[in-house]
């Protein structure tokens, strides 16, 4: 979780990732943020985030993003 937060904060230091739970639905992260984020997560955790993983529910909060990363690392 710490590493995920670190990546998020470097990407968008203006966002309160600990408390925000509507990152995609609320329009906080735009498509370019998502592309950059997916690239960093794939590299950092050696996972492959697939198009079917790219749903708002998986990216609306740092917690959800972390859960997705952990799920993919287990696979």
């Amino acid at each position: 979780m710490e590493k995920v937060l670190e990546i998020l904060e470097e990407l968008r230091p203006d966002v309160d990732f600990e408390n925000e739970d509507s990152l995609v639905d609320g329009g906080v992260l735009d498509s370019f943020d998502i592309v950059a984020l997916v690239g960093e997560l794939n590299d950092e955790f050696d996972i492959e985030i697939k198009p079917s993983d790219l749903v708002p529910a998986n990216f609306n909060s740092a917690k959800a993003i972390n859960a997705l990363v952990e799920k993919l690392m287990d696979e």
Partner: protein
Amino acid sequence: MQTSVLDWLDARACDHAEKSAYICGDVAVSFKELSDITKSVGTYLAGKIAPGQPVICMSGRHPYTPAYFLSVVRAGCTYAPIDSTMPVARLKQMIEVADAQYMLVDRGSYEKASSLGFEGEIIIAEDIADTPADEALLAAARANITELSPLYIIFTSGSTGKPKGVITSHHSLMCYIDAVSEVLKVDDTDVFGGQAPLDYIAAVRDIYFPLKAGATTVIIPKSEFAIPTELFATLNRNKVTALCWSVAGVELPAKLNAFSEAKPEYLKKVCFSGSVMSPKLLRVWQDAMPDVMFVNQYGPTEATASCTYHIVQGKVDENTVLPIGRPYKHYAIMLLKEDNTPALAGETGEICVKGPCLALGYYRNAEKTAESFMQNPLNDKYRELIYKTGDLGSINADGELMFHGRKDRQIKHMGHRIELEEIEGAAKCVDGVRTCCSLYQKEKELLYLFYTGDAAPKEITLYFRAKMPAFMVPRKIMQLDELPALPNGKIDMNALKAYFK
């Protein structure tokens, strides 16, 4: 002969009355409704505003927004669209350039519009949409429009730190739409998937193809670009046949590997512009969609969206360098060397554009206008203007134009045009920034800011987020003890590039 885009609108309101012009989600606006709204809102505006005045338009991403733009046109006026999601400081600069007495907004944008210190009157479009159309008043307003009357003012980045308003005539826009329609073979069976923000130059295709050809444009919600399965579902649900997107937009689904799970089933043509397309990502598209026609477009806002095109022939590989091609109909291109002599075959020169698609200039900025739109130095016989793009090009053996980057420090990032000097100008406004330099790492599409001073990187990001559009916020901010210098004292930008990761 047609005089203005209103001639197109009137014709489509007759021959395609019930067909949808613009769709977003469940909301559709037919050509008949579009014409009726523009007449109602236009009547109200014409009753208040003298023809020829600019009207700022701030309205969300929905099918009524083009209707409000065209309402301003009905009133014989010029629309200046601005995007409410931009930071307040940026919007204030645009308002200052437009120097308008009226702002037309949708209800959703009213609160933001009211917070900008705008001194004129703010009119909510929904409140006046029931105004009975006054045909005599509209005819009187329209009598002021000639082909050369300004249609819109669209803002771009300016190196002085202030946006420039590019002002374009009906004639220029109609020439461009005519030319690109011919290449893309646009007709009333086409459904466009609209990507560009509606206030942005690239949206003129999505807004005006319906008026020209009776086509339909589906305005795609911005959020769907992060979610490729939703994006493709929207394209398929609406049977979208054509996309005119920024390169950045076209690259997104390929980067996210979207084609592994779904495909846009009805797509026939994809046209991209704004920056250099990655051949690797274009190949992803070509492999997934072998029957689609891909068109590379090139051109600045000042020459009405695009001036050259190249239809991609055969499959590209990662070493392919796509030409930017040949001039569209209504456009002419010439290459000038530093000494204002023509570049010979194979030689590199500055790409200059002439013809009826040249913008009327920069709004309320005669000095910048004179610098960029100048007498053709190869013609001393009569008045002929050219626009100097600042881009470098050469003609290849096939007679096609190749792009070789910029003369100055303008870059293309996420499909947007940015002057790096403007980034530096903003950074210098942050307390605790002493010196700075902004650079662009093209391969990774990262905007860097290097600086000296006591400010923390986070403070700089927060300042940019508050003042600048998202695409102008540097993603990598590096604090240095000092900036490397050349012997002449200027910043050594090549040395700074060593910091690129």
